[in-house]
């Protein structure tokens, strides 16, 4: 085990849709400031596991989640299922980037600014400052800075995915969940995203679902294979 703080502590996590179990008995510690890869065969529940970490799974009907997920914070461990947990704040702290780029049907600026507006930040100067910072952080500012009002759906696939990452980063998340973020992109866009993820490791904890062995080996500090229900460090020295 690496000498790092634990960001997320998962114990005996079980998820079921109605009467059908997706997975059960998952226990895992996710280290802070590292990339933890979640791997395994298709259908084993990797994405389900990922979406259970910020309770996004609960938005779907007939889902039952049991077990404990604790998130480390300034005031110690926070049980994400506790009644006192603000689920909307949790989703801002534990942001997610989906498999397919999903820009909302609005402009580039409006897309990135939306999480801030949802949080009640409406001052134009604040919005602009944070949106520009997020776009720069996602290495997208140079490409879209001159056309922030354009429909976000007109961007290329790789740009759209970086936009989605910027939209997550604007919330200044502590954890970023990535569900096969490069699976629908070409090689150049994939390389840009991978380089971005390595950068992001400095500021937040990343949990990456990936089918690409090459990607896991080049990015991950730790691998959790869901089929085997155990975690195994791939590059413990990283």
């Amino acid at each position, binding site marked *: 085990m690496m000498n790092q703080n634990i960001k997320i502590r998962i114990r005996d996590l079980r998820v079921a849709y109605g009467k059908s179990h997706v997975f059960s008995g998952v226990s895992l510690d996710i280290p802070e400031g590292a990339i933890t890869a979640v791997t395994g065969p298709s259908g084993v529940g990797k994405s389900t596991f990922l979406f259970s970490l910020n309770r996004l799974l609960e938005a779907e009907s007939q889902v039952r989640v049991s077990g404990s997920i604790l998130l480390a914070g300034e005031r110690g461990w926070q049980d994400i299922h506790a009644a006192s947990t603000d689920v909307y704040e949790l*989703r801002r702290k534990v942001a997610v980037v989906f498999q397919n780029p*999903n820009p*909302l049907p609005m402009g580039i*600026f409006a897309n990135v600014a939306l999480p801030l507006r949802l949080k009640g930040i*409406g001052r134009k100067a604040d919005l602009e400052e944070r949106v520009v910072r997020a776009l720069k952080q996602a290495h997208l500012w140079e490409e879209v800075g001159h056309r922030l009002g*354009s429909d976000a759906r007109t961007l290329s696939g790789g740009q759209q995915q970086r936009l989605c990452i910027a939209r997550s980063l604007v919330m200044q998340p502590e954890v970023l969940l990535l569900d096969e973020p490069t699976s629908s992109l070409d090689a150049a866009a994939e390389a840009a995203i991978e380089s971005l993820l390595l950068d992001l490791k400095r500021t937040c904890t990343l949990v990456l679902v990936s089918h690409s062995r090459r990607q896991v080996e080049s990015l991950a500090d730790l691998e959790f294979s869901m089929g085997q229900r155990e975690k195994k460090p791939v590059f413990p020295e990283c």
Partner: protein
Amino acid sequence: MKAPLRMAIRSAAFAAALGLFFIVIFLLAALFVKALPVLDMRLLFGDTPPMEAIMGVRPVFDGLFPAICGTLLLVICAVVLALPMGMGAGIHLALSASPGTRRRIGFCVDLLAGMPSILIGLLGFSIILFLYRYFPFITPGLLPAAASLACLILPYLIRGTWQAIHTLPPELMRTALSLGASPVQALRHVLLPAAKPGLTGCILLSVGRAAEDTAVILLTGTVAAYGLPSGFWDPFEALPFFIYTTAAEYSSQRELAMGFAASLILVGLCGGLFGLAALIRRTVQLKIFTGKLS
């Protein structure tokens, strides 16, 4: 599919589309030609000076101005009354109703949509009679007619809102929730703006339906040659009713021509409202893309 058959189907489809175009052109041209002899300021204001009529200083008894105003007021009131309930029910059905509720309410919506408008008018009239016993100020007038018309257009609004939201990609809701939005915020900031074209379409359909209906207002508030209504409980004139009475009771060629002119104005009025709605939709769309929508 064989080439000749494919060609035949394409030709038939093209002919159908072209046919629709010609029907509209023919209808408008026929109305215009029939109305041409009376297309002047007298058509709108009769012998009343236009400015005095517009300012409400003198009533107009032999022009279409009160009927145009009455129709506009009626449509606006009906849509304003129906919109909250129609959209609310549509949103509930699209997002949170159980399949059973959706099926049962969907059946009621379809039943209401298929109900002859004269029945809605009779229902409105019965309610007015019932309420009149306890509240004597409630008589056939603008508000009761608008409320009855609201019942008529309600199914269009419910079904339209339901479809407009239901057909959105499910990823939109999931994305909004993942950004920390509550379900209400997701609806307001993401789903409704994305569904705006569909919503505008169903509102336009409702406006058109409200503007053209005669049977409902015949029983609940419209009268001939009343002038402008001075309150919500006053009777009013409306273009569809004018067209109906003129067609049934005209006594001169000029009156008949006025009926055609009223039809032309009604089509123009609906077209104008459609244009306004399209303009609003385009403006809002622009605001969404430039990020100025709060």
